[in-house]
């Protein structure tokens, strides 16, 4: 079954095209990471799934229902953590959850939900006094009300500290293990690497890549990164390494030499360094980081202008 299906979706705001001819399908049971720098069109796309924003052309189906014609029926069966939301300052955490429970017409225990998202004991405080991270947990808790078939989370880790982001991933993973489909967006790759079955990368309103993380890695094939620990290395010593086939870049801070190269070039890199009179003490290889992968697709320039932790599209 298909959880989300967008076909030929374009959204224009006046002259600005936020999303251009987007085709995207998320199968039931998948964890789908929706990636891209801020302003790439991720939130606009999610807002079209929720009928906050209407597509200029194209069709948007969620759980095989037209998102625009049956928005309430859709929202009854999904859980949402929207972007750019605010809580009701004067209502307590528990009242927020009670409202979600009442709205979805299900029976659920607010306290159990508070526990589930790590807000135990904070339910009687007014949400206006919550930190950004607590608000995020609260709204995540609201999204879990009624055990929805599909979770749509827009930048769920925003405002969370590393520990909170980890818990968020664990919650996502737990929901997915129960068979829930999860569609979530992020501009930070570290958050999705471990949980996603599949990722799609948006750039300037278009889906520029879509695959499993492994698949993307192979497709990009930017090789490996070799980190060599040495006694001392100078720029002159690196000249010979640069000459080698399969070497993309070489850098050193004196004590370590970092080389981006094809997997097959590793031994010759080490050989070349030793030949130049550098004592190699140790070396390790790392896969291309997802960050590199991301930059490759999303474009370094646009990513560099986006702050690492803020949202706002």
């Amino acid at each position, binding site marked *: 079954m298909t959880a989300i299906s967008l076909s030929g979706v374009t959204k224009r705001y006046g002259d600005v095209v936020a999303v251009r001819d987007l085709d995207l399908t998320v199968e039931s049971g998948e964890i789908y990471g929706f990636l891209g720098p801020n302003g790439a069109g991720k939130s606009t796309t999610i807002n079209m799934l*929720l009928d906050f924003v209407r597509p200029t052309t194209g069709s948007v189906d969620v759980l095989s229902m037209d998102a625009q014609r049956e*928005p*309430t029926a859709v929202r009854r069966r999904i859980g949402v953590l929207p972007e750019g*939301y*605010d809580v009701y300052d004067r*209502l307590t955490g528990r009242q927020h959850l009670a*409202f979600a429970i*009442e*709205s979805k017409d299900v029976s659920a225990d607010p306290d159990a939900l508070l526990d589930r998202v790590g807000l135990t004991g904070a339910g009687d405080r007014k949400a206006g006094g919550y930190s950004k991270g607590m608000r995020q947990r609260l709204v995540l808790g609201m999204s879990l009300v009624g055990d929805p078939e599909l979770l749509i989370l827009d930048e769920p880790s925003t405002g969370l500290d590393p520990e909170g982001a980890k818990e968020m991933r664990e919650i996502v993973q737990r929901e997915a293990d129960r068979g829930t489909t999860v569609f979530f967006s992020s501009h930070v790759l570290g958050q999705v690497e471990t949980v996603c079955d599949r990722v799609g990368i948006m750039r300037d309103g278009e889906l520029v890549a879509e695959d499993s993380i492994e698949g993307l890695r192979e497709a990009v094939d930017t090789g490996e990164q070799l980190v060599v620990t040495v006694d001392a290395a100078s720029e002159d010593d690196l000249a010979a390494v640069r000459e080698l086939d399969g070497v993309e870049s070489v850098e050193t801070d004196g004590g370590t030499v970092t080389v981006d190269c094809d997997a097959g070039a590793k031994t010759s890199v080490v050989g070349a360094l030793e030949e130049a009179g550098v004592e190699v003490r140790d070396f390790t290889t790392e896969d291309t980081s997802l960050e590199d992968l991301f930059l490759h697709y999303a474009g370094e320039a646009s990513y560099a202008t986006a702050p690492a932790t803020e949202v706002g599209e």
Partner: protein
Amino acid sequence: MSVEAVARKDFRDAVRSRWLLGLAVLFVVIATAFMLIGARFLSASDAQTFSTSAILGFMNGGFTTGLVPLIALVVAHRAVVGERESGSLKLLLSLPHSRVDVVAGKVAGRTAAVGVPLFLGFLVPALVAALGPLQFAPLDYLGYLVLMVVLAAVYVAIAVGCSAVTSSGTVAVAAAVGVYFLFTVVLGGINNALPLVLGLGGGPSWLPLTVGELQTLLQVLNPTGAFKIVSREFLAGTLFAPPSVEQRFQQATEAAAVVMLGVWLVAPPLAGLARFERADL
């Protein structure tokens, strides 16, 4: 029921602001003062025949038609746009509520937010009136309270309608201020000035109506004016009294005023909704 859930949430949210308590206290003070002053003034003369309805009729001009619309507009003008600006609307619409539910729920919730303090605020004055030298007419008193809530509901509906149309809180404030002045000051002023401009009596020949009829028409179209007609007749006990021949016009005016109040209650939210339904949030 989705509308009910939204309304209840909205009322709960509003109740927690100190606004409502302040409103109830304000109503207690004002209405009690009217009752006491009325009783004091009248005790010297023929107080026994003077009923609470007469005092309410006295309040009708300044307090009810001046203050109730103002309070309703203040309480409701940010109902939708405020949530849109802050982003809590996204939370609301992430749950299975339609935009119709949001607008209808807001009208109901904010009406309750004005109506409940009105009722509470008029309990104490009722006691004062009942124990004092005034003749307490409980049914009329209750009926008038309901009418006041209707007036509040009408202005809440207008404010929510404006609030749903715009994406800017500033515009919503301007609209509320404009509505207040148009209906309580400007239209009333025009109505008073009409005989001076058009001349007393039948008015100019190009006008198919007499000046008096034109004034009545303007008053009926204005929600405050329509309320004044209905509430005055209600307190006098002559609302929809069986017409004699010469009272047919009066009867038609009252019916039209009731209908207009209904129109003002429904049309502004619908108009606001028409825009809000199509809006990108």
